[in-house]
């Protein structure tokens, strides 16, 4: 069986406007944010104008319990350099028990990813409540630095 890692050519880079300097590599982090806490926390970070690197793209889900470990694998497959799953602190879940399951699923998932050779820093899970704008900012900044140190992710994805 020839290991054919078909190369899906990158979609043509978004037409950077001429005067932009050659962009240093910006890690691409996919974030799953629970609508009631973390997404609100991110909104609060915005309301309070807390700057953080533009490397994260948040996907809103009703509850962190909605995030399927397979979404995380799919994100890495399609080229994410890091994945963050964030939700309410245990006990604060708007649906009362959603994040208890998140905790179990992603504790197991993180170890499986590590076991498969993925650097643990690329996959993070955090509890960020609606009033913790600064914590959201700090989490994204920290994660971006970690992943910048690691460089682009070459594992589990369409190899260029």
């Amino acid at each position, binding site marked *: *069986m*020839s290991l*054919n890692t*078909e190369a*899906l*050519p990158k*979609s043509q880079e978004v037409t950077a406007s001429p005067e932009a300097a050659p962009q240093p590599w910006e890690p691409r982090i996919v974030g799953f944010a629970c609508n009631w806490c973390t997404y609100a926390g991110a909104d609060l970070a915005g309301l309070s104008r807390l700057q953080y690197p533009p490397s994260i793209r948040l996907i809103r889900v009703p509850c962190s319990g909605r995030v399927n470990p397979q979404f995380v694998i799919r994100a890495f497959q*399609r080229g994410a350099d890091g994945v963050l799953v964030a939700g309410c602190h245990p006990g604060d879940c708007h649906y009362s028990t959603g994040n208890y399951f998140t905790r179990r699923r992603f504790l197991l998932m993180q170890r499986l990813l590590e076991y498969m050779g993925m650097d643990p820093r690329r996959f993070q899970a955090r509890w960020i409540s609606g009033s913790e704008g600064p914590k959201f900012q700090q989490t994204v900044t920290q994660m971006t630095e970690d992943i910048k140190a690691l460089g682009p992710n070459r594992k589990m994805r369409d190899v260029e």
Partner: protein
Amino acid sequence: MKTVVKSKISALLDEIAKEFNLLVPTAGDGASKFAPYTSGGQVSLDGRTLLPPKDVFFPQTEKMYKFSTDGMAGSLETLLEAPKHQMLFGVRPCDVKSIHELDHVFLTKGFVDEFYQSKRDRTFLVSIGCNGPAEPTCFCQSMGVNPQESDAVDVHLFDLGSEYGAVAKSENGEAFLQKYASFFNEAEVQLPAISEFALKPDVEGITEKLQQMFDHPLWEEVSRKCLGCGACTYLCPTCHCFDISGRVAGNQGFKFRCWDSCMFSEYTRMAGGHNPRPSKKERVRNRFLHKLQYFPERYGDLLCTGCGRCLSKCPVNMDITNIIKQIREVELA
């Protein structure tokens, strides 16, 4: 007949590798399969490979077309990379027959598959005969295959114990033997006797009998133990069913062909959920009827060359020779 000493084979292969993209049976870690030759790599020229050579011409996953859209405009490109001149070295007669049968499917009856053809035409075949069953599960002799010799190749090597007897079977074969004449010397040879096969199914008239056995209860019995996995079809050198799917990312993507198995439950599921082969009975029956009735009706050959791979790796030991025996024992009213 020209002969070459087995010990000089790796030197010969080094020589060939310079000109051809050489594929040889390797048995490194993991399953034995045909892989590009690396001088000093583990070349295993005794016994057949677990993974058949069909993958060389009909890869398990093969990108066919690449497309991109720009608003309403779009572009389409066929991904036909003609491989460098390649040589398949060390194919066994059962696999040679299977390649011959794949040719029926992909190259005849008014349709030529360009992806298959582009690889098949550029491949120089060198086969090696067996002097008996390579594995306990082999039964090629009963399926009309001469284990010692195959004809539909460029060069055939007879296994003479310490050396191989080389016979050209095509002009390219002649040219090849001339080119590498230095490796060969002329000698009178005596073909060894073919040793006894453990499995000897009698396929005489089986196609005609199967034509009246579509609703026979035998299929219910036989199919109960099948798990519906695809191991037999993916290891079978002659199975050639495939599915075409694609992947779109933003405004571009590609179409690819990949193996599919008639044993999978969703293989014949239609839009809307109807499935003409809903249970294992239909699927197992279809697999054996295709091999022993439909294919011979259409192309004249049984779609089974007796390599025994399915028998050796089936999780529940589904045995085609036993099924042929049971079909033979059935009395039709």
